[in-house]
C-alpha cells in the first residue's frame, strides 16, 4: 500500500523519526565506563527514536500525596521530594510514575544539578531496573536517590568565573573569542563529546555568523542571565 502519509522531519531529532522502534529500549551506551571522561566514544548518545508522548494530561496526584504523607517530619525534605516529584511528572507521559530513561538527564539537571555524563550514568545505574533493562525508570527508585543527591548537594553548579576560565583555557591566543572550528573541535572531540545536534544548537545560540566566532564572555552572560535562580537551597 503506497499511502504517503503526511510527515515532516521530526522536529529536533532530525533524521531519526521513522526508524522502527525496538521492542526493548537499549540501555544508554552500555559501553560507558565509569572512569574518567574521555573514554566515552563520540556520539555515545542513544539511538534516538521518537520518544513516547502519551495521551492528554491527567490529573496529577503524586505531589499532593507526598504532602499528606511526608508531613510532620523534616519539612525541608518533604519540600525537596515535592520538587522532585513535580519535575518527574512533567516527563511522565503515561501518568504511571515512570519516565523514559533518556529523560533522566533532563530531570536531574532541571533540578539544579550539573552532573557530567559519566556522573549521570552512575546515577542511572542506581535507579534503573536491575533484572532487565526496560528503558523506564520508576519514581520509587528515583525519588530516594535524587533526594540524597539534593541533600548532599552533589553536582554543584558551575560559577560564572569558573566557566569563563574554562573558555579562556581553550582560547590559546587569548583573543577573547573562539573560532567556530576551534570550538567545534574541542566540543566534539574532547571531554564528553557533543552530538552533532548539541553542537549545532550551541552554535546557533552563540556564533556570530559574520565573523564565524564565539565571543565567549558575551555568550556566557547571555546564557546565564536567562536562568532564573530557583535552585533548591
Amino acid at each position, binding site marked *: 500500500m503506497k499511502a504517503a502519509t503526511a510527515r515532516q522531519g521530526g522536529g529536533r531529532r532530525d533524521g531519526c523519526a521513522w526508524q522502527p522502534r525496538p521492542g526493548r529500549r537499549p540501555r544508554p551506551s552500555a559501553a560507558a565506563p565509569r572512569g574518567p571522561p574521555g573514554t566515552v566514544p563520540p556520539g555515545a548518545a542513544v539511538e534516538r527514536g521518537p520518544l513516547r508522548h*502519551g495521551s492528554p494530561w491527567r*490529573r496529577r*496526584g503524586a505531589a499532593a500525596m507526598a504532602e499528606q504523607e511526608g508531613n510532620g517530619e523534616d519539612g525541608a525534605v518533604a519540600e525537596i521530594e515535592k520538587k522532585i516529584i513535580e519535575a518527574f511528572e512533567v516527563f511522565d507521559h503515561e501518568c504511571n510514575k515512570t519516565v523514559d530513561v533518556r529523560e533522566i538527564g533532563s530531570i536531574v539537571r532541571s533540578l539544579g544539578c550539573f552532573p557530567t555524563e559519566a556522573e549521570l550514568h552512575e546515577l542511572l545505574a542506581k535507579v534503573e531496573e536491575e533484572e532487565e533493562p526496560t528503558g523506564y525508570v520508576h519514581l520509587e527508585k528515583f525519588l530516594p536517590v535524587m533526594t540524597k543527591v539534593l541533600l548532599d548537594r552533589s553536582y554543584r553548579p558551575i560559577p560564572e568565573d569558573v566557566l569563563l576560565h574554562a573558555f579562556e583555557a581553550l582560547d590559546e591566543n587569548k583573543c577573547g573569542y573562539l573560532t567556530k572550528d576551534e570550538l567545534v573541535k574541542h566540543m566534539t572531540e574532547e571531554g564528553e563529546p557533543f552530538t552533532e545536534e548539541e553542537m549545532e544548537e550551541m552554535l546557533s545560540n552563540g556564533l556570530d555568523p559574520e565573523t564565524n566566532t564565539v565571543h565567549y564572555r558575551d555568550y556566557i552572560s547571555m546564557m546565564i542571565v536567562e536562568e532564573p535562580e530557583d535552585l533548591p537551597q
Partner: protein
Amino acid sequence: QDHSPGCFCFCSLAFKAAVLIQRWYRRYVARLEMRRRCTWRIFQSIEYACEQDQIKLHNFFSYLMDHFTPSSSKERDFISRMFISGESFKEAELEKYCDYESMEVPDSYTGPHLSFPLLPDHATALLEAFKQKQQLHARYVLNLLHETRKHLKQLPNISHVSTCYSEEVTVCGDLHGQLDDLFLIFYKNGLPSPSKSYVFNGDFVDRGKQSLEILIILFTFLLIYPKEVHLNRGNHEDHMVNLRYGFAKEVMQKYKVHGKKILKMIQNVFCWLPLATLIDQKVLVIHGGISDTTDLDMLEKIQRNKFISVLRGKKRKESNRNVEIQEVNGEKNAEADPAGNEALPSLPLQPRPAQAPSMANRLEFSRWVRQTVQEQIEWCRRLVDISESEDEEPTYSSMVSLTDLDAPCWTRQEEWKQILDILWSDPMPQEGCRENTVRGGGCYFGPDVTAKILEKYNLQFLIRSHECKQEGYEFCHNRKVLTIFSASNYYEIGSNRGAYYQANKAAHTLTMTQRISRVEESAFRALREKLFAHTSALISAFKAYDKDNTGRITLSNWATAVESVLHLGLPWRMLRPQLVRTTEDGMLEYKSWLDDLAMEQRSQERIQSSLLEVIYRNRSNLETIFRIIDRDHSGLISFEEFHQTWKLFSSHMNIELTDDGINDLVRSIDFNKDGNIDFNEFLEAFRLVKQTHTTAKAENRDHPSQQLCSVLGR
C-alpha cells in the same frame, strides 16, 4: 598530535575545560527542555479546561429546559429559542433563504469570478486571490456552498479511496483556519490532481483567522476533483462549536451583509460531510478516534445529515415533539421515529451534586469534581433527543427505512454516540475504554480497543487528528494509530510544528532559546489571566494556610493552594519563578501578589468587584450565550433579552445582582438605543474581545471600562 610535555599540560587542561563547558551546556539545554514541556502543559491544560466549559454550558441549558419554569410564555419562548437554533428548512426553503442568484456582482469587484462547473483555473485564481488577501464575493461563496452541498449529499458516510487510481494519497490533519499552512502543504506536496489524492481530516475552521478561505479552497478542489479530494467531518464542523471558537465571528466580520446566509448554508454543508475515509480498505481515517462500541456498519447506514450539531443536548416533552412533527411535515406522522422507538419516557431528575468534600483533601476533591461532571454529562446524554430531520424532505433512503421491516433497530442515541465517538475521542496508553471527561465528549480508547476494531474490520492502521502534537505527528498504540496535526504554531509562534510544516521564515531565524521564550511568554500570560480570574477563591485558599493572618504563606503552601483552586494539574513549583517574582525568606505576601496580577490584567485601576471577576472568568461562556441569543447574527439583542440572559446567567453562576444592578450596568455602557444592545460593545467594554495586540491598552483612558469600573468600584 604534538605530545611534548608543555602540550600535554595544555591538552589535559583543555580536556578538563571541555568537560566543564559541556557539563554546563547540557544543563542549560535540559532547563530549556523542561521549560518547553511545562509551557506545553500550560497550553494543553487551559485548552482542555475550556472545552470542558463548553460542554458544561450545554449541560446547563439542558438543565434549564427541564427545570426552569418560566413565569411567562415570553420567557418560555426565550429559552426554547436557544435550542431551536436551526430552523426547519426544507430543501426548497433553504434555496430560497440562501438565494444568491439575485445578487449582483458589481463591476468594481476585483476578486475572482467563479462559474460552474468549476475548472482548475478557478482554483488557481482563488489561491492567488487569497494570497493577495482578496475576498471572494458573497454570491460566489453561496453558489459554491450550494454546489458543494449538492455534491456531498450523494456521497456515502464513509468515503473510499484507492491507491490503484491515484499514485499518492496524502492525509492532512487539523488546519484550524491557518491558511498559510495549507499553502505550504500545497507548495511542498503539490496541488490536488488526478494523480495526487488528498484526504483532509476535519477541523478546517475555528481559532485561525482564515477559516472561510480554507473552506472555499477545499470545497473548490472537492468539486473540481471529486474523485481525488476527500473531506472528513471534524468536531469543529459544528455550528455550536463555531459560535464559541471564532468561525462564526470571522464570517460575520468578513461578510457583514450576507454573513447570516453564509453561516446558514455552511451549517447545512457541514452536516453532509462524510464521517470517515477508508484507504484501500485497510487504513481508516477519522477525525477523533474510536471507541469499543464503534460500529462501521452502523456508521455507514445512519443519516449523517441529521446531526447538525453533535453537541446539542435538548429534551422535548412528548407533546411538544408531536406538535413539531405536525408543523414540520404538515401531516400526521407516526409518533414513533423511524427506528421504531417509543416516545421518551419521563425524565429522571438531574442528579444533584452531593456535598463537596473539603478542599483540604485535594485528591478527594478532584475526584468528586470529576465524578460530578461525569454524572452531569451522562444525565444529559440520556436526555438527548436528536432533532427531527427537519431540513430535508424524506429522501429515498429514509423512506425505505421507514417501511423496511428489516430496518436496523438501533436508537437515535446509539447513532449519536457513534458519531460523537468518531469526532471527539482520543487515544490513551492504558488499555480499556472510558469516558473522555476532559473534553466532555467521546472516549479515551486504549491499544486493546484499537486492536479489536482493526481486527474486526480487517484494517491495518488508523489515522486521526484532533490533538495538537509538538512535532506535528505522533504514533501510538504500537504504531497502529497515527495522529496528524497540520496547523503549525497552534498556540503561539514556535509552539509546535504542523505535519507538513517546516519552520517558516520568521521562526527559522529564531534560535531554539528564543522560540521557547516567546511561547513561554504567551503561555504564562494565559496562566496569569486564569489566576486573576480566580482571585477570590485564591484568597480564601491562601487564608486557610495563614491562620494568624500575617498576610504571608510559604511557597509550598502557595503551590498547593493554587492547584486546589485551578485544578489544572500543572507543576506549580517549577512554574513558580515565572509567576511569583518577589519573595522574602521563602514566604509570599499573597495579597500584594494578587494585586500585582490584577494590575497586569488591567494595567490601570484595581478591580475589586467580584462581579467583574466572575464575568472575566466566564467570558467565553458569556460570549457564547450571547451569540446563541442573537440568532440572526446581527450583533444586537433586545434589552429584554439582555435582561433575561443576565438573570439566567447570574442564577447559574450564583452572583447576586438585583434588577437595579443590571440597569446600572446597562446604563453605564450607554445601551438603550432603540432598546437594542450592541453586545459587541458590551463585550468590548469588559475587554472580553481578545486582543492580539496590547497597544490598545494605551488608548484606554476614556474607555467605557473605566467608567464601568467606577460604577462598580464602589
